[in-house]
């Protein structure tokens, strides 16, 4: 069971933001979405999250049409890390992270929530900010808070400190984590830390991860598959090794892109203007 868009279209006042998009986020796998600005990447993520309703085609998560599933049931199996979330009220960072536990209010305990929140705060490297007021943080710090919030949500009732049975093995419902440009505003080391966390969720906890990225080399390093979106349509998708080659990327991004051998092994993709 996956999170699947089948010929999904999204039209607003005659403008086709998405056209016939068919793409699948599979459990245990990181899918990167790549594409120029305005290609419809965020729109696709929102449609797949059930935030916007596809105007044609369908979105199915674990075999169910997302537009027919109650928000709470969706929230228990899918977490979203937004591009920018504003909050003017001075919640403490720890409390913002704890909001990610809201979908499990009825099944969880305070101690368990606490444990997950502490764990996520360590992973997102925001220990030192835990008691600060959220609105006073910098953009990158806020991003990390939302990563932690999405993590405590996607963990569900799994205990990160033991290796017991995972939720999806118990109820047969796969979990998904959708990240909208998660690296925007982060410094290099935190970008890598975040991508590593996302990849580990996929490979160790069998979560289906979808993330919008801009950096080609991060795609090659952290994703399993990649979908390239241009003007609302998928122009290429497949395993990273097949798609991430200079010819295809150059034509999609209308900018010459070259592969240069990396002395440390493999190659890096570089773009130089003009």
């Amino acid at each position, binding site marked *: 069971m996956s999170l699947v868009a089948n010929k999904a279209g999204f039209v607003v006042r005659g403008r086709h933001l998405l056209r016939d998009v068919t793409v699948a986020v599979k459990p245990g796998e990181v899918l990167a979405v790549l594409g120029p600005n305005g290609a419809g990447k965020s729109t696709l993520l929102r449609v797949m999250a059930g935030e916007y*309703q596809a105007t044609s085609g369908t979105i199915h998560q674990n075999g169910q049409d997302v537009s027919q599933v109650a928000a709470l049931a969706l929230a228990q199996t899918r977490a979203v890390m*937004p591009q920018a979330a504003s909050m003017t009220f001075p919640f403490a960072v720890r409390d913002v992270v704890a909001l990610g536990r*809201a979908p499990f209010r009825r099944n969880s305990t305070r101690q368990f929530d606490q444990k997950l929140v502490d764990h996520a705060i360590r992973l997102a490297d925001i220990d030192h900010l835990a008691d600060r007021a959220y609105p006073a943080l910098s953009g990158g710090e806020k991003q990390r808070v939302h990563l932690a919030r999405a993590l405590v949500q996607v963990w569900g009732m799994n205990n990160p400190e033991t290796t017991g049975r995972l939720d999806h093995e118990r109820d047969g419902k796969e979990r998904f984590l959708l990240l909208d440009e998660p690296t925007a505003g982060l410094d290099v080391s935190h970008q890598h830390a975040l991508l590593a966390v996302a990849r580990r969720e996929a490979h160790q906890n069998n979560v289906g991860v979808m993330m919008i990225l801009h950096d080609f080399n991060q795609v090659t390093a952290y994703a399993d598959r990649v979908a390239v979106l241009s003007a609302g349509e998928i122009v290429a998708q497949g395993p990273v090794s097949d798609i991430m080659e200079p010819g295809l990327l150059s034509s999609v991004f209308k900018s010459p892109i070259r592969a240069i051998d990396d002395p440390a092994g493999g190659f890096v993709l570089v773009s130089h203007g003009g």
Partner: protein
Amino acid sequence: MKQVATSLRQFGQINRRVWSLVLLLLVLVLVTVMSLGTGGAHIALGDVIVHIAQRIGLSGSGIDAFDGRILDTLRLPRILRAIVIGGGLGLAGAVMQSLFRNPIADPGIIGVSASAAFGAVAMIVSGHIILGSFYPTIGPYGVPVAAFAGAVIATAFIRILSRQDGQTDAAIMLLIGVAINAMAFAGVGVFTYMADDAQLRSLTFWQMGALAGNGPTDTPALIIMVLGIAYLMSLGSPLNLFLLGEAEARHLGVEVEHLKRRATVATALVVGAAVAVSGIIGFVGLVAPHLVRLVTGPDNRYVLPASAICGAIMLTGADAVARIIVLPAELPIGLVTGIIGGPFFLGLLMREKKRRRL
């Protein structure tokens, strides 16, 4: 070790919030007792306490029968009205601030109160024309129902106008509310211009607010307020998620449009009923939640009940002031909350401004 410290600190925090609720309740009781002892007829505080003790069966002997009647039939009903209305306004303000994700939202600012007053004023001035021969039968209920209708229609209007592609933009919603506020006040002005002398007196009441009440005809409105308050109180957790943004709230399992619809209708009912009973009383809905957040922090599970209690305290206190400051007359309560609340709110804003400085 660190985890122990963390959980200890959190325990302390929760305790602090619970304690602040208890403390607020105690203050409310104190203010109520003091307000019972305040007014034109001098009744000593000790007598008030003896009287209450007798009423709830703690003491056999009562006080002077005349003083007892003043407390029972004049002051107590009035204070109960103040508690319910103040609580409703404080809570409605807190809910709206979360709903619009804007700390300056308030039923007064987005025009719900003004529209309710417009309904009431329209009924006072032209009720006998609109209702014709039904006017005598509907009589005293006409005005509260019209106030109520005004609040509900204004809220519906704001919601419909601010919807676009199935979503509502909170900022646009707030601005539309401001426009509606202006129109409602203009409408009130038109009817004031048309009113005769007798009608003018009751119009002043709608614009400045009064807790004197209209006797038993207030009962339905007060019951509606209590029900609305009970419902709004239960929205603490979903409204916390709402503060993150509407999309985020949905991602976290809130049926956003449902919540918005129910919460706006419930606030309209509460505010409409409040205006029906007492006219426009400003600033309580704005100031009470701000004051409360200074103590409890922004968590709506505590802010909502605390705002209700704080609103009740503020209005009961303001009413006591209104009753004695210009003896033997009384000042309209809306003037008191405006005179005290306005500068107070300015002070809060200055404090906030300083806090936001880097």
